[in-house]
C-alpha cells in the first residue's frame, strides 16, 4: 500500500495530478488498484481485465475494455489501439469520469462536456473514420441487448435504424430520396445528446472509494 513514497513517485503523482485533475489521494488509490489488476507489473493488458468478476455480466464489457486501450482516448491525435497500457494511460481514461468542479465557467463546462462526449463517440466509432455508421450503431444496440437472446437481436436492428433516422432528421432535416446520410458525425452526436446532461451524469465518486475492497 504505497510503501514507496519516494521522491520520484511523489513527483510523478504531482505531474499526473496536474494533467488529469485527480487529487493525490485519489491517484494513490487508483495506483493501488492498477497494481492489483496488473499483478504488480508496470503495464496492464486486456486479459487482466478479465479477472474482474463483476465486469463479466456487463453487456458492453468489450467496448469498455477496448476504450482503455484506445489511443484516441489518451493522445491528442492517436489512432488505433495498443496492447498494454501504463498507469498514466489508465489514469487518463479514468479522468473522463471525474465530476466537473464546483465553480467552473460555462466554457469550461462545455469543454468537459465535449471531452466526455468524445469519449463516448470513440467507443462507438470503432473504425475511427469520424462517423458512426449504421453498422456501428447497430452493433452498439446489439451489444446492449445481447443479454436478451433472440428477441433482442431482432429488435436491435429496428431500434438502431429508428435511432439513426432520428439523428438524420434532427441534424440534417429533410432529405431527398437519393441523398445519403453518411453517419453520425461528432457534431450531430453532440446535438442529439443535448438533453442528457453528460457532464454531470457521466461521473463516478472517486473520493469515496472503499480501500478494503481493493485488498482482496
Amino acid at each position, binding site marked *: 500500500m504505497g510503501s514507496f513514497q519516494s521522491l520520484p513517485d511523489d513527483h510523478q503523482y504531482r505531474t499526473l495530478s496536474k494533467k488529469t485533475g485527480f487529487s493525490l489521494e485519489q491517484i494513490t488509490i*487508483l495506483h493501488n*488498484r492498477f497494481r*492489483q489488476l496488473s499483478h504488480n507489473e508496470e503495464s496492464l493488458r486486456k486479459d487482466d*481485465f478479465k479477472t*474482474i468478476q*463483476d465486469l463479466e*455480466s*456487463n*453487456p*458492453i464489457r468489450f467496448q*469498455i475494455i477496448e476504450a482503455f486501450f484506445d489511443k484516441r482516448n489518451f493522445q491528442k491525435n492517436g489512432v488505433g489501439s495498443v496492447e498494454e497500457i501504463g498507469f498514466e494511460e489508465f489514469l487518463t481514461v*479514468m479522468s473522463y469520469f471525474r*465530476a466537473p468542479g464546483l465553480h467552473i465557467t460555462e466554457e469550461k463546462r462545455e469543454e468537459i462536456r465535449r471531452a466526455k462526449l468524445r469519449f*463516448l463517440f470513440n467507443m462507438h466509432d470503432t473504425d475511427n473514420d469520424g462517423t458512426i*455508421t*449504421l453498422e456501428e450503431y447497430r452493433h*452498439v*444496440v446489439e451489444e*446492449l*441487448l445481447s443479454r*436478451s*437472446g433472440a*428477441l*433482442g437481436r*431482432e*429488435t436491435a*436492428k*429496428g*431500434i438502431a*435504424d*429508428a*435511432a439513426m*433516422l*432520428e*439523428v*438524420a*432528421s*434532427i441534424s*440534417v*432535416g*429533410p*432529405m431527398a*430520396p437519393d*441523398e*445519403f*446520410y453518411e453517419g453520425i458525425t461528432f457534431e450531430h452526436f453532440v446535438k*442529439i445528446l443535448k*438533453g*442528457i*446532461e453528460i457532464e*454531470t451524469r*457521466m*461521473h*463516478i*465518486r*472517486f473520493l469515496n*472509494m*472503499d480501500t478494503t*475492497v*481493493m485488498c482482496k
Partner: protein
Amino acid sequence: MELKMFIVVLVLLVGTLMPLGATASSPEMGTGHVRPQNDQGHGHSDHGGTATNYTKKPFPVLSFDYEHVRLPFEISLWVLLAFLMKLGFHLIPQMPSIVPESCLLIVVGLLIGGLMKLLGDVSIVLESKIFFFYLLPPIILDAGYFLPIRAFTENLGTILMFAVVGTLWNTFFIGGFLYGVCQLEGVHLAQVDLLSCLLFGSIVSAVDPVAVLAVFEEIHINELLHILVFGESLLNDAVTVVLYHLFEEFSSVGTITVIDALLGIVCFLVVSLGGIVVGAIYGILAAFTSRFTSHTRVIEPLFVFVYSYMAYLSAEVFHLSGIMALIACGAVMRPYVEANISHKSHTTIKYFLKMWSSVSDTLIFIFLGMSTVAGDHEWNWTFVIMTVILCLVARVLGVIGLTFIINKFRIVNLTTKDQFIIAYGGLRGAIAFSLCYLLDPVLFPRKNMFLTAIITVIFFTVFVQGMTIRPLVDLLAVKKKQETKRSINEEIHTQFLDHLLTGIEDVCGHYGHHHWKDKLNRFNKKYVKKCLIAGERSKEPQLIAFYHKMEMKQAIELVESGGGAKLPSALPSTVSMQNIQPKKPPHERALPQLTKSREEEIRKILRTNLQRTRQRLRSYNRHTLVADPYEDGWNEILIKRKKMMELEKKISQMNNYLTVPAPPPDSPTIARARLSSDPQAWGIKPVKESIPTIKVDLASPQSPESLTMVDELSKKSSTQKDNEEEGGLMMKPPPPAERKDKTGEEDDGKEPQRLMRCLSDPGPSAEEEEEDEPFLP
C-alpha cells in the same frame, strides 16, 4: 357568450341548492347520519305512518320526497357545482394565467360559506374524517403512481434531508419562538404551554402536497425543483405524524423525558419504514394479481385502485404513515402492472386517477373556504402575525442551512435561485387544517386560536405565494420543464451510460451507486419480473419496451391523424431508410420473373388467409373487449413483423439491380385512395398472424431467407397498401436502386429478391424464369 350562458346555469343551480339546504336543518355534511324520518318514505305519502289509521285517498301519481335522496343528492350537487366553478374559471380569458386555481376555489368556498351563513344555520366544515379517508388518498395515489422514479431516487438524499431535518427544524423553531412570544407580558397568552406550542409548530410546519401540486402544476418548473419540493411534501408526512402523536400524547401527561424522545425517534423509523413496507406488500400483491387478468381486462384498473386504498387504510390501522404507504404501493406496482395490463386499462387508470385527484383537489379547496366562514374563530393579532412571519423565516433559514450541507454531497449543486424557489414553494394546505381540527378542545383550550392562525397561514401561502410564484419564476428565469419527448437516442445512451458507469466502477473496484443499482436491476430481472409479469413480457429489456411503446404511440397517432396522412412530427418523415442505407454500385442485371400460374397461386393463398383472419375478428362478447389486433398478441405481431423486416432488409442487401422501377413512395393522397378503395386494407394487418401458415419446405438447401421469402411476398403485396398504417417507425421498403454488397450468398438471395420485386410491382416486366424454391406447403 359562453360565459354568460354558463353563469346563468350556475345561478340556477345555486338557486335550487340554497332553499333546499336552508329549509331542512342539515347537520355537518357527510357524517353519515341515518335520519330517523327516512324509514317512512318509500313512495307512500302517509300522513301519520301508523298502520291502523289508513284512510283511503287517491293513489299518488306524483309525489315529492326529498328526504329520501337527500344525502347523495347533496353530495352530487356539491361536486357538480365545484366543477362548474372550475369550468367557469377556464372560460374567463386571462384568469388561469394570473390566479392559480386553488385561490379561486377558496374564494368560491368563502362566498358559498358566506351565503349559507346568511341564509340559515347551515355550517359545513371540512370534516377531518372525510378529508383523510376520501379526499386525500386519490391525490396521493395519483402522485405516487406517476412518480418519476429515476429523478426521485437520484435526489433521494436531498429530499430526505429537507423532509426530515427541515420539518424538525421548522417545528422546533416555530414552536420554540412562539412559546417565547407567548410568555411575553403584554400578550395574555401565558396559558399556552410549551407542548401546545410545539404541537402547533409541528402541524403548521409541514409542506402540503395538495397545495404544492396545485400550484407547481401550473408553472411547469424544471423537473429537479419539482421533484425536490414535491418529494419533500410527500415524505414529511411521516415526520408530521410522529411529532403530532408524540406531542399529543404528552400533552395529556404534561412532560417529556429523554426516554420519550428516544422512543420518538424509534417511532419515526417504525412509522416511515412500516408505511413503506405495507405499501410495498400491497404493491406486490397488485402486481401479482395483474398477471392473471388477461381474460378479464375490464376489471384491471379496479385492482390498482382497491389495492392502493387498502394499503392506505391498513397503514392507518397501525398509525403508520398512510401517505408513504400509498406512494410505495403505487411506485412498486407500476412497472409490473403496466407490463401486464392492456393499453386501454392503462389509459383508464391514468384518467381515473387524474379525474379523482382533480375532484378531491377542488373539493378540498372549496371546503377550506367554507370552513373559514363557518368555523369559530379567535383572532389574536400577535399570535397570528407571529405565526406567519415565523413560518416564512423558519423556511428560508432551513432551506439555506440545509442546502449548504447538502451541496457538499451533491454533484449538481443547488443554486441560490433553486433555493429561493424551494423556500418559496413551501406551501401549507388542508392537511394542516385537518390535523388542527382533530385536536381535542379540552386539552387545547386555545384550539380556535390555532385554527385561525393556521387558516391565515394557509391563505397567505396559497394566495400570496401561489399568485406571485409564477411571475417570480419568469423574472428569475428559472429553468422550465423540457417539453420534448424522450428520444430513442437518449434512451439508448442512458442505458449505455448506466452500463458504462457500472463497468468503470467495477474496474475501479469501487462498490458504488451504480454497482448496487445494477445488482438490483439484475435481481429484478432474474427473479421478480418472472413472478410478476405474465408471459413473454417478463423477459423484455427496458430498451425494447421503450421502443415498443414509442411505436405503439406513433401508430396510434398515425391512425388518429387519418391513417395515411402525414406522419407525426416526432417521426422523421423527411428521412427514410433509403437515406441511411448505404448505396453500393450496381452489380449485375437480372430481371424478376415469375410464371403467371405461380403468381395466381400466391394470390389465391393470400386471399384465403385474409378471409380466415377476418372471420376470426368478428366474434367477441360483451365481457371481453373487442378482439383488438392492437392488443392481444401485439407482441407476437411485433416480433414476427420484426423478423420479417430483418429478413427483408437482408434480402435487399444482397440484391441486384433491377430495371423495374420501384413503386413511388406513397403520397398521402394515394395512400388514402388505396385505403378507401380497398376495404380489405384494415383487415390486412392481422394477415401477419396467418403468415406462418404459408410454410416453405425447410429441407430446401436455401438459406433461411427462402423460408420467409414467401412471407416477404405476401407481406410485400399487402405492405404496399398498409405501409402507411403500420406505425410510424416502419421503414419504407428499400427501392431497388440500393443494395449492399454481400459476398457469398448472392445467388440464393437474388432469386427471392427478384420474386419479391416482381410481385409488388404489377408492371409489365416479368420474364419467364424457372423458380426453384417450393413455396407451397
